[in-house]
């Protein structure tokens, strides 16, 4: 197929209020997505706190690509491809560690943790020392926002700031919850496999229509107030930020409640140290921050911040996706962190009281989408009642599919470029 044919095809398959089922089930579409999305746009890779000290490194991924996130002695963060420049062996087997260099086990080539080749045995075979101009592959562009490290395989294109747009403000809202203005991802990751297409996960993250049904079991036994946030009567909204990003903005409900830490299901009295630290750090603004709570935002294509937990979505095939999840930890807030961790562990991962059921839905969805009829997936919910806000973002009701339509509009743009 020519490029023009492919463009025409995605123009047809992605329509404003419906998308074609084959977008989730076709290996060819997945190959196109790797090229046009995962290896072109900005993708979230890791957080600077995962490589806190000089020479720390951690193995990460961009889709199926094995990426080493390292911090060199000078403090800079690098994204390197885990592939020896000699004949392609892995240069890093450990999941994480501290080392100034990576040495390939096959023929002993050694690289600095910033990617340069520093040595190769029996160098006469190459005409001597320092004759080879090889090094580890790099993700050409690396950019950091509030400690969140993003990479782009496209050497040119929109900057990270342009890509994030106003969704960056949601990351800012998260870090403000720390009295020191920083989060840390130090709790390690659960890795949960879904036999489903990655877009089902990305779409679901800000789908406010499903919680009352998928999570009814846990809402009813844990006496959680979350269910009510996603209902017909909720004043919460769904917002599409553009560039495929979206959020469930629950602030209207939390403001109505007006209670610091109400968003977290607790009270000021039970977190006195944290509240005092927040008031000391933020002054007047602390009240609003404590009442409004954490964001619930999906950053296209793979970063999802769900209040107290953070996900990265890693696609491996058209029907295999890994959900990496960890608890957000707020710098300078030990009592909150303990509670956020235990709450997060209860909710997410393979045995999570919430996520196991979401994942079941993704997997059933994938099976259903393999059926031939009726072909299309409907995403029109709430399109008649959405509006554009003062910042130019489309806003729908708490249970509307506004976020999905925003996701697909951006997808179409990338796939038909």
């Amino acid at each position, binding site marked *: 197929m020519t490029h023009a044919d492919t463009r025409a095809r995605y123009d047809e398959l992605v329509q404003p209020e419906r998308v074609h089922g084959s977008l989730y089930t076709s290996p060819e579409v997945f190959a196109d997505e790797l090229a046009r999305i995962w290896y072109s746009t900005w993708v979230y890779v890791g957080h600077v706190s995962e490589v806190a000290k000089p020479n720390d490194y951690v193995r990460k991924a961009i889709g199926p690509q094995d990426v080493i996130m390292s911090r060199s002695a000078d403090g800079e963060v690098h994204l390197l491809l885990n592939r020896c420049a000699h004949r392609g062996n892995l240069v890093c087997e450990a999941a994480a560690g501290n080392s100034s260099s990576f040495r390939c086990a096959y023929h002993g080539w050694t690289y600095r943790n910033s990617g340069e080749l520093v040595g190769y045995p029996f160098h006469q075979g190459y005409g001597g020392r320092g004759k080879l101009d090889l090094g580890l592959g790099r993700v050409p562009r690396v950019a950091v926002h509030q400690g969140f490290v993003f990479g782009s395989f496209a050497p040119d294109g929109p900057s990270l700031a342009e890509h994030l747009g106003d969704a960056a403000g949601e990351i800012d809202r998260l870090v403000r919850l720390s009295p020191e203005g920083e989060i840390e991802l130090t*709790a390690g990751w659960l890795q949960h496999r879904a036999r489903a297409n990655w877009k089902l996960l990305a779409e679901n993250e800000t789908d406010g229509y499903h919680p009352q049904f998928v999570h009814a079991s846990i809402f009813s*036994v844990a006496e959680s107030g979350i269910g009510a946030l996603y209902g017909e009567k909720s004043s919460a909204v769904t917002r599409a930020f553009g560039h495929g990003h979206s959020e469930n903005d629950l602030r209207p409900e939390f403001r109505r409640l007006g209670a610091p830490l109400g968003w977290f299901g607790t009270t000021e009295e039970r977190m006195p140290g944290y509240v005092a630290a927040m008031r000391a750090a933020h002054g007047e603004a602390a009240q609003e921050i404590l009442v409004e709570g954490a964001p619930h935002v999906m950053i296209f294509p793979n970063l999802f911040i769900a209040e107290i937990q953070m996900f990265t979505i890693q696609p491996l095939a058209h029907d295999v996706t890994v959900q990496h999840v960890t608890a957000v930890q707020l710098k300078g807030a030990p009592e909150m962190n303990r509670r956020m961790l235990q709450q*997060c562990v209860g909710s997410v991962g393979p045995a999570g009281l919430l996520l196991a059921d979401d994942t079941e839905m993704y997997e059933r969805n994938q099976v259903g989408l393999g059926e031939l009829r009726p072909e299309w997936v409907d995403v029109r919910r709430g399109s008649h009642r959405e509006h554009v806000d003062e910042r130019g973002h489309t806003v729908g009701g708490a249970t509307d599919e506004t976020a999905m339509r925003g996701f697909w509009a951006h997808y179409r743009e990338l796939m038909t470029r």
Partner: protein
Amino acid sequence: MSSVVDLDIRTVERFLYREARLADEHRYEEWEALWTDDALYWVPAGSDDADPMTRMSVVHDNRNRIATRIKQFRTGRRHSQIPASRLRRVVSNVEVLDEAVGEDVVVEANFVLVESRERGTHVWAGRCTYRLRLVDGELRMSYKKVALVDNARVLPTMSFLI
């Protein structure tokens, strides 16, 4: 307090086999009744000994959360267990350790568990550490740690009782 209760290996095995069968057959109330009030049910992630107070776990349930987990099954709307996984596990290599925690006897055992679901068949395996205690003449467990052999890798959904 008699620290190491006089437990012979057959008694211990009988308890472990029963615990396994109740979990395999989703007999939630009977399984829950095996726990003491200070229960801890732990499935570490990343490594067998990751500190559960600072690191993510697959399961880290105190008695309260065990109860919530069981109640969730009983709503009949725990989708990831509808239909329930077909399960059978083999428990073996049972050892009564030479240590005690308070009045609890520490026991370890290996297991291999086959799970069948629509998504496919999965083999789970690992080593469990139990703390067993006599409460009113009945054996109960106060602690079950499940060290999965693949706890540092990608796992499918595991919403049954492991």
